[in-house]
């Protein structure tokens, strides 16, 4: 391997210790949550530092499924997240393409205003939305949630897709059009498949936005039957003495799918994200 990336023995020792310290920092809260989720009811407030608690049990997980509306929350979150992922991916795939390939009036302004949306404090959008929903009595409705999440995810995902398309040479489409392909066909059959890593990251980002959002949901959803996972888990957490174990078990279950997705995609994440931001 290349010499310049090797390290002296002392350097190696330092590198490993440094990585180890931060890895421990990174996994500490995760280990904690798992540990608490395994505690039996009488040890929730235990002061022991053991990682695997005495009499470890899956009692909390069982209760989550049998006695609490956890499955209902999962269902609600899946409905909302799937819709956001589909709509968000389609819209950013097309809008990103337009920004990458077309010259049109107001393009720079449009791109900059997309960036500006990141500067809005959350209340600036939430407050008018809240007032509107009260006035038209559109509380407790997923449609509002889906539109809000998609719109929040779009600025980032459009930029991301634009960056990705920019790295695909324009000559490919030109050749296709010369060969008699329509413009849409060139986009659909040539460019889109090449951009699939970007699409995957965009979908992941849209999904995570919806799966993990607490604030907008807290304002728009009041009916407990419509609670998404974040609202449900927050409810457990607010009386921690009683439900700390339930909260932890829920947190573990909610995180597993996103963490798995993240790891599966992490190779693409590193290339896609930097392509998106550098060559943008």
């Amino acid at each position, binding site marked *: 391997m290349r010499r310049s990336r090797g390290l002296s023995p002392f350097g190696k020792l330092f590198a490993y210790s440094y990585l180890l310290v931060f890895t421990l920092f990174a*996994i500490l809260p995760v280990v904690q949550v798992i540990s608490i989720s395994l505690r039996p009811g009488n040890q929730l407030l235990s002061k022991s530092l053991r990682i695997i608690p005495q009499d470890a049990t899956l009692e909390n997980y069982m209760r989550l499924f049998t006695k609490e509306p956890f499955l209902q929350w999962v269902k609600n979150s899946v409905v909302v997240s799937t819709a956001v992922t589909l709509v968000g991916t389609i819209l950013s795939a097309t809008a990103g393409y337009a920004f990458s390939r077309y010259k049109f009036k107001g393009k720079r302004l449009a791109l900059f205003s997309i960036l500006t949306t990141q500067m809005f404090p959350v209340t600036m959008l939430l407050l008018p939305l809240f007032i509107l929903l009260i006035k038209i009595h559109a509380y407790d409705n997923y449609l509002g949630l889906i539109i809000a999440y998609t719109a929040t995810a779009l600025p980032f995902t459009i930029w991301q897709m634009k960056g990705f398309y920019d790295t695909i040479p324009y000559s490919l489409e030109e050749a296709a059009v010369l060969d008699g392909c329509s413009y849409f066909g060139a986009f659909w059959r040539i460019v889109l498949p090449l951009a699939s890593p970007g699409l995957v990251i965009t979908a992941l980002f849209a999904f995570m936005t919806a799966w993990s959002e607490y604030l907008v949901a807290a304002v728009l959803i009041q009916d407990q039957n419509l609670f998404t996972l974040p609202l449900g888990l927050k409810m457990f957490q607010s009386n921690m003495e009683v439900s700390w174990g339930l909260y932890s078990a829920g947190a573990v279950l909610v995180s597993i799918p996103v963490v798995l997705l993240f790891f599966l995609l992490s190779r693409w994440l590193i290339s896609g994200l*930097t392509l998106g931001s550098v060559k943008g």
Partner: protein
Amino acid sequence: MFSKEKESRILLLSYTLPAFILMGLMVIYPFIFNILISFSNMSLVHFKDWKLIGVQNYVQVLSDPNFAYTLLKTVLWTVLNVVFHVGIGVSLALFLHKNLKGKSLFRTLLILPWAVPQYITALTWRGMFNAEYGWINLALSKWFGISVPWLSTEWGAFTACLIANIWLGFPFMMVIALGGLQSIPEELYEAAEIDGASWFHKLRHITIPLLKPVMVPAITLGIIWTFNNFNVVWLVSNGGEPSDKTHILVSWVYKSAFTYFRIGYASAFSMLIFGILLVFSWQFIQKTKATESVYG
């Protein structure tokens, strides 16, 4: 590029319109409405019969000594977070870029904080900072015989939020830096070594300058996101506890709006936050030329 053909006009519209209508609905409409009510006396009492009252709300926000204090605190919060995010993230990336055994395992575990949903991070750290039963105080008292009242004092709670947010944010910078490092040609280092450059020289004259164009857009976004990071502050401090002392600007506005229903006041406050960020980002982008590559 495609410019004159009719087909492409229609395509352009159908590519961009749906996204813009949706964002317009959710961004432009609330934005304009927010400007309007920031000049009004809307509150719980005057919810239906509100009227425009001029700049009174802005005067009220700006003349409140708490505003300057919270602004300073927010700046401190942002600077500390971003410095730690970038410092930790880039240094880890430098090590992960070396030929070390087991580096992909380290990389995977180090990305973990990014993968965990933000609200779970915040709620979990809140549990860990619990004075009596939280892991942190249990470990501190067992190993060092001390116990810190994390969540019940102003700066204890601030530090708790800070630690939780540093945990959550460094992997993003690490991943960006890793990508940037991969694009630096190896030959540069080899050439520098032939010239006898030291480790520090290579860092200073090759790595940092070539990493900069990758990091600057990420840092810009990082600053904006941290300045407006509602989730961590709100959920770790449980809405600003103790007694509304643990706030950054955005969490304080949220509380004014949705707990105290001072709607006009809160929207004027939101406009000011937005203004601050807009001016800052514009300056920052101009100075660092962050978007030069982006607008291509």
